[in-house]
């Protein structure tokens, strides 16, 4: 009787151990924007991010890196396979040694929330702003805004 109980106890412990080992392979994502927080140290399977050195996907045990976010779509695949897409304007990506990932965006919104016609209107507005810009600084500003608006339209479509 006691043998059975011991065996069950051991089995339970080994399952627990496996789970614990699996735990280390998971990565913790903090995905926040200045306006709201989407993930706060929650475990996810994969994150795809657009950066200035090219878009890349992050899985657990990714090599530590720093990158700068480019306007585009961040895709988060959660452990249960649920995929969510967010549009980000700019920000930073940090992948640390302990597989924790910080994606900090200046502005981020769910892709579903973007209105395509509004985004297109914004794009044309910035394009006319670029044409009418006189100083170098204003031109650069408008060019950045266009880049962001283009990504916004692409994300919404």
């Amino acid at each position, binding site marked *: 009787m006691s043998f059975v109980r011991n065996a069950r106890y051991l089995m339970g412990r080994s399952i627990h151990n496996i789970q614990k080992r699996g735990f280390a392979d998971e990565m913790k994502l903090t995905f926040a924007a*200045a306006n709201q927080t989407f993930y706060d140290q929650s475990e996810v399977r994969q994150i795809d991010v657009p950066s200035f050195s090219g878009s890349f996907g992050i899985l657990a045990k990714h090599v530590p890196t*720093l990158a700068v976010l480019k306007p585009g779509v961040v895709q988060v695949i959660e452990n249960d396979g649920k995929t969510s897409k967010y549009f980000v304007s700019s920000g930073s990506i*940090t992948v640390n*040694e302990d597989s*924790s990932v910080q994606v900090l965006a200046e502005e981020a919104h769910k892709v579903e929330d973007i209105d395509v016609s509004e985004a297109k209107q914004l794009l044309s507005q910035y394009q006319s702003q670029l044409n009418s810009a006189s100083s170098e600084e204003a031109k650069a500003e408008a060019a950045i805004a266009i880049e962001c608006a283009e990504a916004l339209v692409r994300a919404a479509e």
Partner: protein
Amino acid sequence: MMMQRANILMPVAIEATFQSQPQRGMATLKAISIRLKSVKNIQKITQSMKMVSAAKYSRAERDLKAARPYGVGAQQFFEKTEIQSEDKTEPKKLLIAMTSDRGLCGAVHTGVARYIRNELAKDDSQTKLFCVGDKSRSILSRTYGKNILMVANEVGRLPPTFLDASKIAHEVLKTGYDFTEGQIVYNKFKSVVSYQLSTLPVYNAPTVEKSEKLALYDSLDSEIVQSYLEYSLASLIFYTMKEGACSEQSSRMTAMDNASKNAGEMIEKLTLTFNRTRQAVITRELIEIISGAAALN
């Protein structure tokens, strides 16, 4: 100029007290009622200020809750790489004081200013200040005016936005002051009744690049590190501004609540004195009338 004005004022004030001295009764009654009225008005003001800051506080707290993971995330990289500035021989320090333009909020701003003053008392030759908000400037400019690099105004009227933070970060980087050690001095919000003065370190690109653990990080060039640091400075400033704004509102709420309570106490005492004086005046007049009538008989 100030001395002159004070000299003119003094005799007037003395005269006023002399005048009010011999007349008692009616005149003091009037004086007390004026005083009572003004205290009542002050209480009304402090009460409504409390209401306003309570509303602002609840919003600031909500904002802060959203911004906390952001701020913590922004600090993670610096904590995990354990960066330390190696250049101890000649540290050029930069202190960023997170305050606002508005006063009447307890010791929120003075706490920040006191910390900075203590830091400057140690060594003020290699330290520069960046004052966010007029309050820290007005407190520090008298003694350490030459250390102030720049002041950011119009802080605190509206809730801080990321745009404000990035503007400040931009100015910090644009000043051309190559600091080796940076610190953001701010109040960290704990609860409605308490906040804690805290500091956050800020690093420049050479310090980060020298860090040992950075070798672990893949595919970095100095441009990425530079833009990463610029962005994280803006994020940290944004986060500390949120913390500061929330502490300020909560502290103002408490301060105004206390002020209303004190005004209430004062009103109670003044009303009592007013009634006593009124009675005394009536009694005296009665005595005068009665004794006058008695003298006639």
